[in-house]
């Protein structure tokens, strides 16, 4: 069983400590919950796991090795972010998949279908509704069958049927062997899906 270990992760921005000695261990096959108020550091922690921000100190290990050595596939859906506005959903995912080159055309189509969208939809991303945008961003996070799946408020703008689909996808991904970290304000999401829950406040785990 593989592990994602976050060891003493600290991030300071100017004089503010946004992550303060955060340590946790996540295992494959499980959905782990992350709860906390706005600004508690949930999204920042996900950004640090993805390598989008450089930690001031501490490390993130996958299977006992650094990210550079282990090279895990990370699927991330971070709150309030967007894709390329003038490209179709399929083209967006195809472009992103070129970076790792592990997802085939069929994988991309399957991911889009799994989230309940049409891979042949010719509308460009900016013409999607908020819920559709969120579904497509979820599709990009699962298209490469990632080792680590980071989901930050994945059901914010999604309707009831979509929420069920997102829950099902999370469970399927965990069953496939992915490490799933879910940050959510919706307590029912957390209580129904997560076996382990971490709570954050002011950049610290409590």
């Amino acid at each position, binding site marked *: 069983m593989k592990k994602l270990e976050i060891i003493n992760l600290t991030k300071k921005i100017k004089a503010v400590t946004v992550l303060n000695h955060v340590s946790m261990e996540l295992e494959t096959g499980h959905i782990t919950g992350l709860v906390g108020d706005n600004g508690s550091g949930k999204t920042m922690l996900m950004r640090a796991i*993805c*390598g989008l921000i450089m930690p001031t100190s501490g490390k993130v290990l996958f299977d006992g090795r650094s990210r550079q050595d282990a090279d895990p596939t990370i699927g*991330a859906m971070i709150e*309030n*972010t*967007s894709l390329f506005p003038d490209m179709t959903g399929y083209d967006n995912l195809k472009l992103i998949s070129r*970076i790792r080159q592990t997802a085939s055309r069929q994988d991309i189509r399957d991911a889009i279908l799994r989230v309940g969208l049409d891979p042949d939809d010719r509308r460009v991303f900016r013409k999607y509704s908020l819920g559709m945008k969120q579904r497509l961003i979820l599709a990009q996070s699962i298209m490469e069958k990632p080792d680590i799946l980071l989901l930050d408020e994945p059901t914010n703008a999604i309707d009831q049927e979509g929420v069920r689909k997102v829950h099902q996808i999370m469970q399927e991904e965990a069953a496939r062997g992915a490490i799933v970290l879910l940050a959510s304000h919706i307590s029912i999401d957390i209580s129904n899906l997560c076996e382990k829950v971490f709570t954050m406040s002011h950049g610290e785990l409590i």
Partner: protein
Amino acid sequence: MRKKYLFRELLVIPLVFLQSFLTVVGDKVPLPAEDMLLFSIAGRVSEELVQAVILATDQMVFLLLFLLLFGDFLAEQLRTGAVYQFSRMLSRRFWYYHQIGSFTGYSFGYAFLYVGLHAVVTVIASEPGPGNGFFMIFVKLFCIVGLLLLLFGLLCNWLCSMTGVAPGVVICMGLTAICAVLAAQPGIVSWIQMLNPAYYPIELFSERREALGKAGVLCIETAIVSVAAGLYFCRKDIYPADGEG
């Protein structure tokens, strides 16, 4: 007040410097200050400096257009789709090498079109036609212009990433204009002119050694900017705003 807008207010300083360059560095003017102030704000049309600026800026228009078109080439990627691109990359260094390669291609492609189109026009317009030195002059101009575009383009992208697109492009355009005006001023120490990227007078191209020296200086300046920008891009924390990627 928001820092961002306070910073934008300060952008008027290089503009005034540019407009008043001769007044600041030249001889005293035998006019009362109120007349000079009035002349500075409302009566600049026949000012000697304005002519110098217009001539200098005219020579740099190709560069200003390039900055408008490509000034945000790399910086944009840290905003749009950044979360999904960079979370898939083990090292941003390779991304930067790739981007530098593409950007060099665009810079020299643009330089080739610019110098090449001028070459075509001159061949058509010249009565005796191209002489023996035509090709060498074309190559020298192409190299100098290409390096100039690469240098200012990288600088602009770096500034855009640090300050935002609009201030970044404006600052870089201001720098370009200052360099162009400095290049047009006689009597400035030769080593300062050699370091000034916008200084490439006709005389420079008659001496092979001088042209090579200028290209070498531009190469060093470009290398310094590309290394500094690379360190910044590779270490920058990515926090896209709402609705950005």
